[in-house]
């Protein structure tokens, strides 16, 4: 078995505590994922990525650094990865999705902070995740209050650059975001020592668009009446998209989609007839947060789409590839990214439009609105989301959860009851 302990030691990780995560992750993945029947064969690639989650990709990033390259850690789908890749650097998503890291975050953050932020801070400060140790610079954003103040604390431990995301979407706000991207470009050039040219940015835009196209293709297949892939499998793919090599990820996801195309032709379904189709909406589900999908899909439901950062908000809408000047490309990036409908914006009625559209496109029987505890943005917006769904006669269940396992029984009861009433 590959021994990454020397690599982890060189990253000044706390091996003893990290070992506790290594102890539970294999079993958790096997119980949740490998227990599924008739998984697409191409999912073996994603099994491999999770099995080697703290090995292969971190080793690739370190190799990149040894050749003089830089790694930027990001926490939000608004941060334009294209700028990083255009400077021959690598962007890697860093959001923490496990309770394992939360206590570390709670040493410095209020307990009533969302678990995603606490886990992200804890992973760094407790030195228990190689990705958090490898990144040369973190890129934060002013999406929510919790994050804004967390960057101040993290910034004392690791170089952190914060992008000011506007709070509204007027024309002047989109122009302001374009200016923020220009400033980010200057910073990336300074850190990497590489100049971002229009040609390199054009290539990076296509690189990231290709990844989005692959994910869009995967999601399109989930619109079928007979589902060729489970929501759980689609979720882990979306989670891996944040940190895997973009070219390899795109290739392997397209390979999976080729297999799924054949499954659709052959009428293969991984769920029995009558399984209730669920659209999930709300706060993101960072790896390895598989709890809700697992409960839904072992209770008689199938998750057909996620209107989340780990879902449609990540890949819907491409960046315009026709621009040939840096200014034009940056404006195109600003337009594309400001089209993401996160609850940190006001107003955010376009998100409700998205949810209603997705219910229709994915033939959802019902919607589950998921909120990470202490996320006041999505929690408050949940009122408008759920009201809009009820007005359209679309069944909706609002759930609040965190990263612990203690609410699993209660969630299963509520989700089970919700699934039962669907289609009545």
């Amino acid at each position, binding site marked *: *078995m*590959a*021994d*990454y*302990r020397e690599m982890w030691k060189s990253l000044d990780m706390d091996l003893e505590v990290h*070992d506790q995560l*290594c*102890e*539970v*992750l*294999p*079993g*958790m*993945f*096997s*119980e*949740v994922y*490998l*227990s599924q029947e008739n*998984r697409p*064969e191409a999912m*073996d*690639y994603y*099994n*491999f990525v*999770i*099995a*080697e*989650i*703290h*090995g*292969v990709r971190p080793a690739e990033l370190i190799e990149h650094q040894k050749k003089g390259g830089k790694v930027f850690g990001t926490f939000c789908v608004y941060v334009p990865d294209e700028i990083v890749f255009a400077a021959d650097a690598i962007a890697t998503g860093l959001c923490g999705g496990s309770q394992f890291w939360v206590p570390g975050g709670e040493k410095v953050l209020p307990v009533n902070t969302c678990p995603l932020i606490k886990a992200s801070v804890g992973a760094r400060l407790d030195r228990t995740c190689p990705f958090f140790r490898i990144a040369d610079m973190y890129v934060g954003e002013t999406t929510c209050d919790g994050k804004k103040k967390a960057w101040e604390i993290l910034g004392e431990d690791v170089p952190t650059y914060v992008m000011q995301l506007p709070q509204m979407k007027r024309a002047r706000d989109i122009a302001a975001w374009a200016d923020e991207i220009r400033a980010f470009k200057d910073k990336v050039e300074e850190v990497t020592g590489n100049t971002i040219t229009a040609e390199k940015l054009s290539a990076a835009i296509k690189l990231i668009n290709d990844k989005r196209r692959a994910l869009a293709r995967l999601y399109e297949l989930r619109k079928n009446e007979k589902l060729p892939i489970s929501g759980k499998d689609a979720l882990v793919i979306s989670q891996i998209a944040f940190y895997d090599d973009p070219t390899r990820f795109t290739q392997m996801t397209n390979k999976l989609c080729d297999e799924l195309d054949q499954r659709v032709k052959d009428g293969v379904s991984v769920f029995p007839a009558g399984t209730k189709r669920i659209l999930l909406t709300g706060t993101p589900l960072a790896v390895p947060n*598989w*709890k809700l999908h*697992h*409960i839904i899909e072992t209770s008689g439901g199938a998750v057909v789409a996620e209107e989340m950062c780990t879902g449609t908000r990540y890949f819907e809408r491409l960046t315009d590839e026709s621009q040939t000047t840096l200014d034009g490309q940056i404006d195109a990036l600003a337009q594309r990214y400001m089209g993401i409908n996160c609850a940190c914006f006001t107003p955010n009625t376009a998100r409700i439009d998205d949810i209603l559209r997705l219910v229709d496109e994915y033939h959802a029987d019902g919607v589950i609105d998921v909120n990470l505890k202490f996320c006041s943005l999505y929690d408050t917006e949940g009122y408008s989301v759920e009201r809009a769904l009820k007005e359209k006669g679309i069944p909706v269940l609002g759930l609040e959860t965190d990263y612990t*396992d203690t609410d*699993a029984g209660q969630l*299963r009861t509520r989700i089970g009851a919700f699934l039962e009433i669907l289609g009545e």
Partner: protein
Amino acid sequence: MLGYVLFPNHTEAMRLYERLKREKVRCTMAPTPRECSVCCGVSVRLEQVEDIPRVEEYARQEGVTVDRIEQLPVPGKSIW
């Protein structure tokens, strides 16, 4: 029972996996169970332990280095 083929690195795992797939051996890439190793890493999980002898032969033919093959019960239900 399931079989877990353990390797010194992921490259050997991929090589044997590709051969087993060509030979239609029922297998998946899987995180190495904690009972088998003290480190994270990938193993090839055999759905039928009866395939172990032919897997060993394929590994020999391909020159794949295998640490060992362990047999473990099918994992239980998730705590969620």
